[in-house]
């Protein structure tokens, strides 16, 4: 049986000088991540495994927690640069989240111009929620037109965080930001809502890659930022299997919690059962025996 591959690329010192990021190291981290996943020798070839040249790529980031715990702007821009320098036209890349306000508060500079990588929220004039009500399993939502219409392929570039209700939030839950009513899907540890939303047509058909921003991991009291439990983990996680990527993230959170003497998520009655549901739905792998983890440091 084919294993799902997950790359954990550590970049010790990538956050070394205060809040600044070592760009050179960041590029090395991305390069290794893409190469491990695709086994291609060049970045251009690696990128072409996931995306066709004329693809319109959405990089769905997570900015809800604000500047201190967002998909870091430097890392997101670095990713978009890598794509635009390796076969994807910059004008066909959209970095986005729910609102312009959240993007600005997280440190992003909005860009709506025709040239270059675009950065804007769903609430931008001309975007909005306008695809009509989509009913899928237990989900009944209206999608952001960015996800439903503007893009043809999607990268979930989420922050790995503990979550008071879901247990863990990462790449799959990041897509809650594509619908108008995520507040309706937090019951029962977000299960089965996280996998069912991912399974909907605008996400499953377009999702190509999960990259988890683990430069800082909030392993307790998430999803908002709390410095006592925010670890400078200095890693990025890559996988084309959205479930496996998040599953590996979950194990990291459990490990960090154990190191600090915190109870496991199961002991806190918030073990993320949605992984089991996701695997049953065929969205990916949520068992260690089916996941090949390749961990490297650059």
């Amino acid at each position, binding site marked *: 049986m084919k294993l799902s591959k997950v790359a954990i690329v550590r970049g010790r010192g990538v956050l070394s000088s205060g809040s600044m990021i070592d760009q050179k190291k960041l590029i090395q981290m991305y390069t290794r991540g893409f190469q491990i996943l695709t086994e291609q020798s060049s970045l251009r070839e690696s990128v072409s495994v996931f995306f066709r040249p004329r693809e319109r790529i959405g990089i769905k980031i997570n900015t809800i927690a604000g500047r201190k715990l967002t998909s870091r702007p430097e890392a997101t821009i670095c990713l978009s640069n890598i794509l635009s320098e390796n076969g994807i036209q910059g004008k066909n890349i959209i970095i986005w989240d729910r609102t312009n306000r959240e993007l600005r508060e997280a440190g992003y500079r909005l860009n709506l111009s025709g040239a270059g990588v675009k950065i804007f929220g769903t609430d931008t004039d001309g975007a909005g929620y306008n695809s009509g009500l989509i009913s899928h399993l237990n989900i*009944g939502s*209206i999608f952001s037109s960015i996800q439903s219409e503007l893009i043809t392929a999607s990268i979930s570039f989420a922050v790995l965080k503990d979550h008071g209700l879901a247990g863990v939030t990462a790449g799959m839950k990041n897509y809650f930001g594509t619908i108008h009513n995520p*507040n309706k899907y937090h019951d029962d540890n977000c299960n089965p809502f996280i996998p069912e939303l991912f399974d909907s047509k605008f996400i499953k058909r377009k999702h190509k890659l999960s990259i988890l921003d683990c430069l800082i991991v909030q392993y307790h009291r998430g999803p908002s930022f709390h410095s006592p439990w925010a670890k400078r983990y200095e890693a990025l996680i890559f996988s084309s299997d959205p479930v496996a990527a998040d599953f590996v993230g979950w194990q990291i959170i459990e490990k960090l919690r154990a190191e600090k003497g915190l109870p496991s998520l199961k002991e806190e009655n918030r073990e993320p059962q949605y992984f089991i549901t996701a695997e049953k739905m065929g969205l990916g792998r949520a068992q260690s025996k089916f996941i090949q983890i390749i961990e490297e440091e650059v």
Partner: protein
Amino acid sequence: MKRRQFLKSAGASFIASSSLTPYFMDSFAFGEYANLSKVEARYYKKHPDREIECTLCPRFCKLGDKERGYCGVRENIGGKYYTLVYGKACAIHVDPIEKKPFFHFLPKTNALSIATAGCNVNCKFCQNWEISQVRPEQVRHYDFPPSSVVNYAQKYKCPSIAYTYTEPVIFFEYMFDTSVEARRKRIRNVVITGGHINPEPLQDLIKVVDAIKIDLKSFSGDFYHSYVKGKLEPVLEAIKIVNRSDTWLEIVYLVIPTLNDRPEEIRKMCRWLRKEIGPDVPVHFSRFHPMYLVKNLPPTPVSTLEKAHKVALEEGLHYVYIGNIPGHKAESTYCPSCKNIVVKRVGYQIMKIELSGGKCRFCRTPIPGIWS
């Protein structure tokens, strides 16, 4: 009433309401966050690490910083909990009170009816989901503070203000303050709710409002879990609390084919109602129309509604109505003693009132309600 006369009066009612809100139910283009309110919520507990627990409704949402409750209109900002919809009405209409429906409360009058975005449940058959199941920044809204609401009620000669369309519980602070101000101007307040509210805020609310209509959506916990995303027990408790108060109470039961229309379930509910709140609380069985996430079912057959009506009468309820079937004889109020019609209705129109001092004009039996 002739058909032409009926249509004419219905049309007049629509014009009155639409003139107030030209953008009601407009597209999903939404405005800037900055236009939302930031008024501290009344019912919540603070926990360590900037976490809060909302105590307004039985969900008891526990939220970290920057998170919103299930309702989508209350947000934890830095460890304090705020309502984002205070004075932010997304629907403003002048409606006949019969549309709510209230059949034993100021008949033949209009209610200035307002709503904000949001709801604390997610009924799969919601008729107003475009405003109830969205966040406030996703629907066009108006700055309409309590004083303006009261002024408009006076301007449009409405003896009551109705908090309706979505779920008023989620705009509790706005509703409460408006109600207090309205009472000072001798305007009454009516609430149209699913009853998903905790006892403490409900006890506070009934001190300032005059009538509450509770949508009892089923008598099955499973139905509430699957189709409402809420719980039955708190709604039953709310019904009992309102009934014990001086606030007038009416019950609506939307009958949905195959989902909550079994006669035995309806009989069980009617027995409970008679035992817990007595036979005199009006009960309306309303017709379902396919909507929102339940579009695979037909409208409720009239015969199903008539069966429910019959069951309720058999169980001893005195004031049982059929709704959303304009012209049906069960729209009218019958004296439980002499069986004469004491309030004749056709649609939202009152054709005649045979009451005097709140009593049947034929046999002098008191008919409960707030009639003037």
